[in-house]
């Protein structure tokens, strides 16, 4: 089959958008209040360690995706069981993000539209993107990303009048404990979520370095998040942060330039959705690949539509309300994803290192044997 390849730059851009993705909806309102930007930085620091494992796995198995790696390391049967669980995780989170998008749209403007319509429409768009394949996603994100960057920069600059640095004070008033608990939450969502990229790390361009992709995106995306969080706190204060459901969206509403440019929150909403859309696409793309692998379907494009629609339908009854969803994302998701984000990659990494070392030893010994 034709092998899909995305360039290093496209992979970086995809990962940055992925990292920024959901957090524009879900990041706010933690225990650490005005210190949340410090929590983001802590989370980046912690993620730097874990991401090294991800990148190492990608480096050890060039041109192989996670499912194949599991097969190689743990055998056909056990490997497939792990793939099954991992595919469930991808499916679940993918559906949750679809739910995110549709709830966001429903709450901020289309309040009388049934949420299932919005979910299905979202599903159609994602299904088309997934069906078109990874290369197309890479190209698509290369167009969206510059527009997105320009948009956010403009919004940031326009809101410059509203910043009040005093809202960031006092720094670390309640000590490090709440900051660390928030950092743990932010570590799981979004930074450790980059484990998903292992599902198609085999499609990274051959000469590209997984380390570069992972670290570059982690740092750029992470520091962007820290700035966004700090900006939001400076604009509306820590107390309001936990009051609003979508603080980032609210900050755009505050922007006023003269009497002319106001109420531009819709632009912000469009930016947020296009970002989150990318994240959902990445998840559901990986899910589709996982399903294709499980059922030995050579061409994953064919099952893109059914599997994405399944996710978008599953998303409808997934949560009763947006508040429940945000609670779940903040309190349960970090623990729920430990096996997939930490245990599985570390296990893969350790087994791979041991196996490879063994192989190296045997291959190193073999020529000697032959010589003797």
């Amino acid at each position, binding site marked *: 089959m034709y092998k899909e390849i995305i360039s290093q730059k496209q992979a970086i851009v995809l990962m940055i958008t992925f990292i920024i993705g959901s957090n524009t909806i879900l990041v706010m309102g933690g225990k650490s209040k005005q210190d949340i930007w410090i929590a983001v930085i802590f989370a980046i620091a912690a993620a730097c360690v874990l991401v090294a494992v991800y990148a190492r796995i990608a480096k050890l198995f060039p041109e192989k995706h996670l499912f194949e790696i599991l097969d190689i390391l743990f055998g056909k049967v056990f490997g497939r069981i792990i793939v099954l669980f991992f595919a469930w995780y991808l499916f679940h989170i993918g559906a949750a993000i679809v739910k995110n998008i549709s709830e966001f749209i429903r709450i901020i403007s289309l309040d009388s539209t049934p949420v299932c319509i*919005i979910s299905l*429409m979202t599903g159609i768009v994602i299904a088309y993107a997934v069906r078109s394949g990874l290369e197309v996603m890479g190209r*698509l994100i*290369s167009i969206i990303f510059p527009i997105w960057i320009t948009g956010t920069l403009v919004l940031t600059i326009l809101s410059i009048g509203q910043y009040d640095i005093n809202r960031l004070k006092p720094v670390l008033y309640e000590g490090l404990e709440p900051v660390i608990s928030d950092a743990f939450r932010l570590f799981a969502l979004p930074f450790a979520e980059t484990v998903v990229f292992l599902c198609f790390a085999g499609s990274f361009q051959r000469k590209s370095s997984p380390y570069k992709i992972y670290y570059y995106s982690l740092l750029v995306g992470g520091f962007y998040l820290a700035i966004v969080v700090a900006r939001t706190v400076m604009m509306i204060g820590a107390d309001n942060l936990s009051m609003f459901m979508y603080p980032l969206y609210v900050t755009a509403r505050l922007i006023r330039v003269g009497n002319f440019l106001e109420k531009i929150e819709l632009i912000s909403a469009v930016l947020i959705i296009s970002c989150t859309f990318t994240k959902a696409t990445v998840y559901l793309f990986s899910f589709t690949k996982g399903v294709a692998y499980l059922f030995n379907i050579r061409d994953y494009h064919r099952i893109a539509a059914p599997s994405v629609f399944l996710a978008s339908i599953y998303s409808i009854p997934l949560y009763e309300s947006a508040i429940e969803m945000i609670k779940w994302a903040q309190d349960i998701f970090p623990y729920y994803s430990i096996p997939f984000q930490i245990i599985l990659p570390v296990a893969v990494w350790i087994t791979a290192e041991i196996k490879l070392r063994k192989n190296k030893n045997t291959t190193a010994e073999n020529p000697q044997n032959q010589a003797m």
Partner: protein
Amino acid sequence: MKETQTTAENNVNKSVIMLKALKDNVKQFKDIFQNDDTFMIRYFVNSYQSQIRFCLLYLEGMIDAEKIYNSIIKPLIQTNLSENKTTNIDTIMNQVIISHKVEKTQDSDALISAIIRGDSVLLMENCYDALIIASKGWKSRSTTEPEGEKVIRGPREGFVEPLMENLSMIRRRLATPDLKFKIMHIGVRTKTKLGICYIDGIANKQILGELLERLNKVKIDGILLSGSLAELIQDAPYSPFETIGSTEKPDVAAANLLEGRILVIVDGTPHVLVLPYLLEQFFQSDDDYALNFYFSSFSRMLRVLSFILTVTAPAIYVALLTYHQEMIPTPLLMSILAARQGIPFPTIVETLGLILAFEVLRETGIRMPVSLATALSILGALVLGTAAVEARIVSATVIIVVALTGLTGLMTQKLKSPVVVIRIFLTILAGLMGIYGVLYGIILVLTHLCTIRSFGVPYLMSYTSLRPEDLLDTAMRTPIWFLKKRPRFISSSNKIRQANRRGN
């Protein structure tokens, strides 16, 4: 499938088997061209040796009578053939006939198609061979400035219908032996002549091979327009976007050749096909390279912007007015609502209806004789515009939006077909889901654009590669000395097109 085979074999069964006797040969040709009154048979003999009989076959109207008289009949009659004893067809060909192109053959297909194309066939008594002598002659229109690609500063020459004249226009601009022309015929009945034109060493061999393969696969009775050939061989056949471009200007064609693209010239159409063709080329004009680069960049951005506007303006209007009225500044909203007072239709119906009305006006304007233009403008502007607003059937704001849409749409004429489709698609989505529908629609269209390729080259290559050097000649036009490299993938190994900055 079966039908195409029968058409393909249809005119193969008629053929000529060249015999010795002149009479028999002529009879065979007569049978083939029976019921065709323009088919002319002219017998004559040499004035010195009356036993050498000749017969000249041609189609009236396709030949230049002057040429036949001066270069064939006159020398054949007047030359003293009795001087050399062994008069055969070779001596006739080499010593008597005064023509730049003479061919000796027995091949029936060649002979028949030569007659059809306006050459004449000379038969001789006691001879198995026949001579095909060039005698084509017909009037073609003189070259004019193409209506579709007007320029302020640049050559005014445009392609014409005959293939060979078009080839000569290109050749005059590129004086290099590397410029290659490959002639082939397509269409079982029309046998339309195609010229495939490329510069050896710059054009990508893989793309050329792919093109030839696709052309060979075309089995059709006739190709009359280059546009219909493009539809048969282009990628993404179901897409509204065209992946093969066309130009009417020889200088644009030459510039495309220099970038490594390949031209397909179809005899009878002044529109030359350019491939691979990418989206950014729809926004380029050859004026851009003649005028100051600030100005060209500005007008290019204007073109891109108007493309975006013409596609999204009605959709955004519908979305804002139906779902997000809070987004519109209050004074503006007040005046829009005042204009909408008493309008019986919802915004989406109003907008779609007016878009349709505008498309009807545009279509009429193209197909209509010029003398009716006044009637059209009265009907369009007065009846559809003013009267509809005054009768409170549509609001004035919608007319403004649709007028803006139409005006910006005229700026990118070549993208007309995708524009119309996407505009209506987005407007309907806006009616369903507001601005989010528009966003989803745009993502769908962008995804579609990302999937398209033109002969293996991604349609949006320059925009999606994230390489700054690919953007130098897209939405902006940087100074010419910046454009050091030919576009990637399109050209083969020879990538550098100019020396260092301004020749230093």
